[in-house]
């Protein structure tokens, strides 16, 4: 499903963000990628989204080597992945409904489908009654739910969540993680990049720990590893 083979990423400045990283994530898995700042987590996300190209090694997603995908075909690969960010990245001038519908409009989904799928997705994330609200009228947790609905509305096979609880209190963080677990149970592969120790320890999922660009550990049903 998602495989990194001997991936090294060296920036032009000389900094090595990832060094010979090997990760294999199977279909339907729920995986935490943890590590302190500078461990290479953000670089990993950018590589998976083909925003960056690795200096060595290759990344395979759904059987396709990312490096072999021509620039004009990148959008097809990205449609197979949903992305959730720490700061939600919602469009402030649009309602909850419009934010989620935007994801479908962008991939040119017919309007009649948008009208059916968006309300269903908002109900799933528990915001069925807030479709008219603007992001500023919602709590952080609610905004992240909208972002998750937007990421899922196009039925991606993988959901990448980059610090999804980074701006949330413990209660909202837990709710978001429960939602992601629910999404995972429905068949979507979920990859969560985080440094939220409590959440990781509580969820008891597969945990890959990165330190200074190297995979320090990869444990099934693991906890947040003390890097020191």
């Amino acid at each position, binding site marked *: 499903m998602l495989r990194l083979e001997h991936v090294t990423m060296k920036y032009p400045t000389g900094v090595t963000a990832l060094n010979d990283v090997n990760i294999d994530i199977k279909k339907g898995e729920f995986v935490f990628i943890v590590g302190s700042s500078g461990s290479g987590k953000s670089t990993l996300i950018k590589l998976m*989204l083909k925003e960056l190209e690795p200096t060595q090694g290759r990344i395979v997603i759904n059987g396709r080597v990312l490096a072999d995908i021509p*620039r*004009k075909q*990148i*959008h*097809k*690969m*990205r*449609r197979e992945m949903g*992305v959730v960010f720490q700061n939600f*990245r919602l*469009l402030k001038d649009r309602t909850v409904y419009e934010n989620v519908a*935007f*994801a479908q*409009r*962008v*991939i*040119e989904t*017919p*309007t009649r489908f948008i009208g059916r799928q968006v309300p269903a997705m908002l109900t799933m994330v528990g915001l069925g009654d807030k479709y008219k609200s603007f992001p500023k009228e919602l709590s952080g947790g609610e905004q992240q739910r909208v972002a998750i609905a*937007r990421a899922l509305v*196009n039925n991606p096979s993988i959901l990448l969540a980059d610090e999804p609880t980074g701006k949330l209190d413990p209660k909202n963080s837990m709710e978001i993680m429960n939602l992601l677990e629910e999404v995972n149970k429905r068949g979507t592969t979920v990859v969560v990049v985080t440094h939220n120790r409590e959440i990781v320890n509580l969820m008891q999922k597969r945990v890959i720990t990165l330190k200074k660009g190297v995979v320090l550990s990869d444990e099934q049903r693991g906890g947040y590893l003390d890097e020191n």
Partner: protein
Amino acid sequence: MKISTLWYSIKQGCKNIKRNRLFSLASIGTIVACLFLFGVFLSIVLNFRYMVKQAESSVGISVFFDEGIESTKIDSIGEQIRKRAEVKEIKFISAEEAWENFKKESFKEEEDQEILEGFEDDNPLADSASYEITLNDISMQKSLVKYIEGLDGVREVKHSEDVANSLSTLQVLVGYASIAVIAILLGVSLFLISNTIHMGIAVRKEEIAIMKLIGATDFFVRAPFIVEGVLIGFIGSIIPIGLLYFMYDTIVSYVLENFSVLSNILTFLPPSEVAKILIPVSIIIGVGVGFVGSYTTARKHLKV
């Protein structure tokens, strides 16, 4: 492209114009100024061409023959002239016709008829048979005159070199001036449209980044900006067309009324004739500048 995508791009393009009101207005204003000047120059050039054409059909060459020349020789000269590419029409005016024409033009009043009484059986213009030649292109007059002057049996070739030369020279000068002014203004318009689009891209940076991550195609991301540029170009071309159309008639009437001496020399094209060329050319230029400016900028700054 799907209809819904086209509609979305048009809506977003309009929103972009609204969001960047000031920049959009500046771009539209520059295109209006550019195409207004273009329209003014085009109207002048079209009218010059029209006047030159008029002159070509009225300003002609008169060819007079040696005294006592035989009619077969006159026919032969006529044949030689007729073969020339510069000649549009050649007409023989006999001495009798020349005298009749002269009488009609010069002795219109009744009291003048007394003067003519002495000429009843006489033709003072007996040796004034001639060929009246009109030209295809007034700038060719010089070469034709030179040729005819070299023909055997030709006494004199009368022509108005000044009119021909000055009209042709003016037409060329106005043409060059138009090209220079329009080229500069088009450059400025392109620059401003490019800046407006760049500004729009900067304002919508976050939205564009999300679109790219969700899986939008290059075309989907760029289309609203191209629509924006084309709309700016289109609006910028419609305004000067309207202005020029209403101003043209007013100015032509004013010139002819206040400078009546010119009305004998100048013949202006009707507004509908100028509009036939001005409307499509202005729209093509406006939309073209908008398209090129926005397409190149969007291509440069919106790589997915």
